[in-house]
């Protein structure tokens, strides 16, 4: 076998087929009708203008998280703490909005400040993980996981403690903000907010341009591929790692701010919606390359939204989307391995 574009595409198609086969088997195992399940997922994602806008609503935070992760992956870091960074972004946004909601300021100004506060929250939490890694020798995976739990605890404490609803605190979150403080919704849609859509698209383009076209991006690549050589070449290694944590934190914080200002309009216990972890999956699936991130993230968002109706229609759990996404990424990784093995064999025998 040769290292050609077609063989690469062949393996990717193979991975998709395998993922579908495994998911179908899982559906049989659950006693469900696989084709009905797939049909309702597709209908649930593209069946009406309303669900399509829902997919876009879900795409925005996922794409933001993925964009940030592409930067940390470029420098060779596994920023698993992104979940906590999203949560902190949401907390800081809520905090800013609570402080300003009765100030009588222009709502747009309040929203801008709230978004900036969210960025600050994500940034601080990411720098904390970075500092643990750089100055404490704590692997970013374990430091990040720990910080995720702390962020969750902080969030729940706020919802049930200082920021609880009048009367009784509940898992449904804080009291929703006044409609005037919602991110403006597009005409003819129930939830789509064009402003956040623009932020996400500008974000991924900026990340792509930065990684592929700037000196800074090239230095990140160098550190990611071989930190020792990069250091010898005069590139400050840990400073670039911290910078990439910071950039990822900015994106994560934005994702959290979007969740509060445009999606839930309040703080809820699971405010990150797992977009951080899902973003890691998207980044792995696209081989850490920015060019494919947007469409793949859109596909993942469609799967998530498409499976929301499954429990009601087919009495199936909506985690089917996760099963499909997980098997897909797993088989793509396995496919990489098999292909590399075959390529090596061809090289040796020729």
């Amino acid at each position: 076998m040769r290292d050609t574009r077609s063989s690469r595409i062949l393996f990717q198609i193979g991975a998709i087929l395998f993922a579908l086969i495994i998911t179908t088997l899982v559906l049989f195992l659950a006693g469900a009708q696989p084709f009905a399940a797939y049909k309702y997922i597709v209908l649930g994602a593209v069946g009406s203008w309303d669900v399509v806008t829902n997919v876009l609503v879900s795409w925005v935070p996922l794409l933001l998280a993925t964009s940030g992760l592409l930067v940390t992956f470029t420098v060779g870091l596994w920023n698993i703490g992104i979940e906590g960074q999203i949560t902190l972004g949401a907390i800081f946004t809520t905090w800013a909005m609570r402080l300003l909601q009765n100030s009588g300021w222009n709502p747009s100004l309040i929203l801008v400040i709230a978004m900036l506060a969210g960025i600050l929250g994500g940034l601080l939490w990411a720098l904390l993980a970075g500092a643990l890694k750089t100055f404490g020798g704590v692997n970013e995976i374990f430091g990040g996981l720990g910080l995720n739990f702390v962020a969750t605890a902080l969030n729940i404490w706020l919802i049930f403690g200082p920021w609880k609803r009048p009367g009784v605190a509940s898992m449904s979150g804080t009291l929703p903000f006044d409609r005037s403080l919602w991110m403006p919704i597009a005409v003819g849609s129930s939830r789509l907010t064009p402003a956040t859509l623009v932020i996400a698209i500008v974000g991924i383009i900026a990340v792509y341009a930065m990684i592929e076209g700037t000196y800074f991006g090239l230095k990140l690549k160098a550190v990611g591929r071989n930190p020792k050589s990069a250091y010898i070449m005069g590139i400050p290694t840990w400073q670039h790692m911290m910078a990439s944590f910071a950039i990822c934190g900015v994106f994560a914080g934005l994702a959290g701010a979007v969740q509060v200002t445009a999606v839930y309009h309040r703080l809820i216990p699971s405010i990150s919606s797992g977009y951080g972890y899902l973003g890691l999956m998207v980044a792995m699936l696209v081989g850490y390359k920015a060019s494919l991130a947007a469409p793949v993230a859109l596909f993942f968002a469609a799967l998530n939204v498409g499976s929301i109706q499954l429990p009601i229609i087919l009495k199936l759990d909506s985690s089917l989307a996760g099963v499909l996404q997980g098997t897909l990424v797993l088989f793509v990784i396995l496919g990489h391995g098999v292909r590399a093995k075959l390529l090596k064999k061809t090289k040796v025998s020729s």
Partner: protein
Amino acid sequence: MRVELRGITKCFGSLRANDNISLSVPPSTIEGVLGENGAGKSTLMKILSGFYSPDSGDILLDGKKVKIDAPADAIRQGIGMLHQDPQDFPPLKVIDDFILGKKGGLLPNRKNAARDFRELSSRFDFSIDPETYVDSLTVGERQQLEILRLLWLGARILILDEPTTGISLPQKEKLFATLKKLASEGMTILFVSHKLEDVEALCSRATVLRQGKLIGSMEPPFDTRVLVEMMFGKEVPQEPKTQLQVGTTVLSVKHIDLDGIRIQIKGVNLQVRAGEVIGLAGMEGSGQTLFLSACAGLSQPVGGSFCLDEEEKEMTGRTYHEFRKKGVAYLPAARLEQALIPGLSLTEHFILSEGMRGFFIDRKKSEELAKSRISLFNIKGKPESTVESLSGGNQQRALLALMRDPLKLILVEHPTRGLDIESTIYIWGKLKERCARGTAIVFISSDLDEILKYSDRVLVFFAGKVTPPLDANTLSVERLGRLIGGKDWDTLGTEAAHA
């Protein structure tokens, strides 16, 4: 046991590491296997010990063909190999390391093993405490541990790959006594080395490999001149050196103490002057690398100080990047691991090393830069070639091309290791060009000819001890070799070139 190799061939990619090698070694023999770095000695021995499988050829023991596909097979046949880097387990206790690999039983019989260990130790006059940890032993002691272990496993054929590298002189003498004793008891020993002196002192026959081929064998009395010619081809006459223009001091090293993982260095003094070349000689692991990396701020001294430029700038405790800003460059030996970035192209390397200004990469300008450097340094590669696709010689040229200009001081580990003659001459030509423009060079090499040919002054390292700077013009290969081996150190005080 008689060991016979018949028509052994082994290729790595396009490189023929062993080319149809046949060799027969009778019992009670210490067979010296000689050759320079890369001659194919280690590969041949790794085939005999089952670490590699040959592409073709047979191994016979006492005339019987045996199949050796894995080290386990070799152990079963009584073949034991002492690798150049002792293949032991630093975090384990000596006794655990000793037991690891011994077949049979769920529970190790520590008591018996310790008893056997002590018995074997006393037989060869070794003194290792079985309850200490392997990482607290010297390299020489770790070799002794390996030898004891192989004997305990019942080895009847012992292979030693460059065993005299990194051990002290008394340890070497002890090792030689041990090997002679073992041979007299009927052991077959293959002693791999590129050191003539060791082979002449120890072996009952010497076989020379060059570029993967067996060149010939010789029995004592050895004619050194002939052996050298077999190893290196015709002897190259030394050309006279041009007189050095002594410049101002670029680096002064004052009473530096260094604390490495296995080695400690005390009180080094050195003034490096603009335009001169200083060679650091010694067996690998004698402290040269530790010293050189400290000169670049890559490791921190525990005492003493470094100053750049006529004592102007105190640099002790500064990072490598601060040294770098002041005009110091460091070229590590492990090119792909520590100096270049696999996966990035030549162009990208040039962009990174230039430290270009601006935000977006100027593609056109950087491509032009890459093209001009590639032709200037005669690199066989395209701007878009990734560095790992280049040959070793071209990688080294790329490293030189990546160095900024001007520089005060270049620190190089093994500038020409693994390179062919043409690249070697080219690399030194480029380095000397820098010297002519006032750059000082400090380099490590294990090649004595390289040390003598290119250095103005030489520091010899031996087990953490460092000679004062010696004038290269008055230094002979023989004297250098003796110093590297730990001899004549008491006479040094009087004749050191003034620093």
